[in-house]
């Protein structure tokens, strides 16, 4: 599904990504973890095309960045910082983004709006939304569009406990429908419950990519992460 080979990126003389190798299979829910500055966001930004990487290749569903529009249709990206037009309503925004993906699934959209309890907020201008509401809005659009892979940078940030539960359910049903999920997070306990696989990034390299069941048992994901960071737990 998503294949990253030897991904390298340097910023102002500092090597941020140092040959990232990752192969995410269809149906995988991959939790992408790492310390601050490990290169998680740079990896996600390289995949989504926000930045250009220096070396390496990325393909999604066989499409490379050279096939730009086809490539971009393979994923839906939810960034950590959600930027919207503040004076446009949630409804107008969702319809705008859906049209960019040639998606017209109004009933599906209404279902997700209801599941995230956003009915009242939708007609209001997005400038009035909280951080968590903007995250919910993006999740609604992403699940409605139903792309082959959802790529998310800290999707759980700002979500209330009910919405985290809804997120878990929706991720599972999305994967059952044939989707793939790749998200970065710092919330290791939640990642342990949702993810089927985990990848740990350290100093711009993947140091572990394993099925959750193979790494969690005697350990928790948190203790494993600390061990890999050489931090006493």
């Amino acid at each position, binding site marked *: 599904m998503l294949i990253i080979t030897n991904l390298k990126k340097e*910023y*102002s003389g500092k090597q941020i990504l140092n040959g990232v190798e990752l192969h995410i299979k269809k149906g995988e829910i991959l939790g992408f973890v790492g310390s601050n500055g490990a290169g998680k966001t740079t990896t996600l930004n390289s995949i*989504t*095309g*926000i*930045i*250009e990487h220096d070396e390496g290749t990325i393909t999604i569903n066989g499409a490379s960045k050279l096939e*730009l*529009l086809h490539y*971009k*249709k393979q994923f839906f*990206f939810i*960034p950590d*910082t959600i*930027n*919207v*037009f503040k*004076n*446009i309503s949630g409804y*107008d925004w969702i319809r*705008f*983004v859906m*049209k*960019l*993906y*040639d998606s017209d699934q109004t009933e599906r959209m209404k279902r997700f709006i209801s599941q995230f309890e956003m009915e009242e907020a939708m007609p209001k*201008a997005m400038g009035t939304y909280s951080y968590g509401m903007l995250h919910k809005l993006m999740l609604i659009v992403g699940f409605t569009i139903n792309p082959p892979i959802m790529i998310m940078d800290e999707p759980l940030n700002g979500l209330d406990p009910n919405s985290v539960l809804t997120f878990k359910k929706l991720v599972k049903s999305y994967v059952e429908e044939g989707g793939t999920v790749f998200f970065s997070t710092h919330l290791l306990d939640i990642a342990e419950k949702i993810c089927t696989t985990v990848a740990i990034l350290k100093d711009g390299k993947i140091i572990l990519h394993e099925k959750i069941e193979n790494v969690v048992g005697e350990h928790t994901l948190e203790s494993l992460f600390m061990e890999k960071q050489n931090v006493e737990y």
Partner: protein
Amino acid sequence: MTSFYILTKKEYVQMFREFKLIWLPLVFMFLGATQPVVTYYLPSILAALGGNQGITIDPAMTQQDGAQVMAATLGSQFDQLGIMVIVIAMMGIIQSDKANGMLDFILTRPVTVGSYIGGKIFSNFLFVALSVTFGYFVSFVYAHFLFSHMPFLDMIFAIIFYLLWVLFIIAFTTMVSTIFNGQGVIALISIVSLLVLKILSGLHPIMDLLNPAGMSQQAMLVLITGSVDSYLYGNMLITFIWIALMVMVSHYWISGKKYHKD
């Protein structure tokens, strides 16, 4: 539905929510009315207010006709205050998307840089062109009733030539808005550059050929003389080339992610 169409539609939704769809045409209608009304009533205004200071109108002064008043609307109102208004309305065209992260958001969707820039320039040009045309027709109505009639065809040709200059203004402001990050800097660079081009127009025929502001001169010439000069087609072609260059620079800047600070 193409992304160009969707992005164009989104621009209009935003303009509506920001009330730009209302205030910009009103400003140009006001500017359009100002020139004929002030010119017509100037003797009365001076008689009422200026007499005390010894200011009077020379009774031997030639009365302006409608076409000259219309030309003054383009050259004095639209090319001075009008340029500033257009630049202020357009200075955030790309800059605001860069500043609030919307540019990154849109470009990670199935959208090409070409359709993004195209949608921006097309939607804003169409809107500004309509606003300018409204103002122009308001000026025409006043000039027709207060001064004299002018050939309708000359008036149409004049606005077509003038709108090519407007298209250049939009393309130029878009390019500056793509490259620079502060709205003040964008406004300053755009207004000063465009006014310098305007001041330089009419100084020398060869310079006019290369100067997009020459299209404004051509518009005034059609109104006043009813004919165009021999440089018109060359001037049009070169203005189109300038516009294409501006669009290419904007495209290069965005697709090369040069707006990101390392």
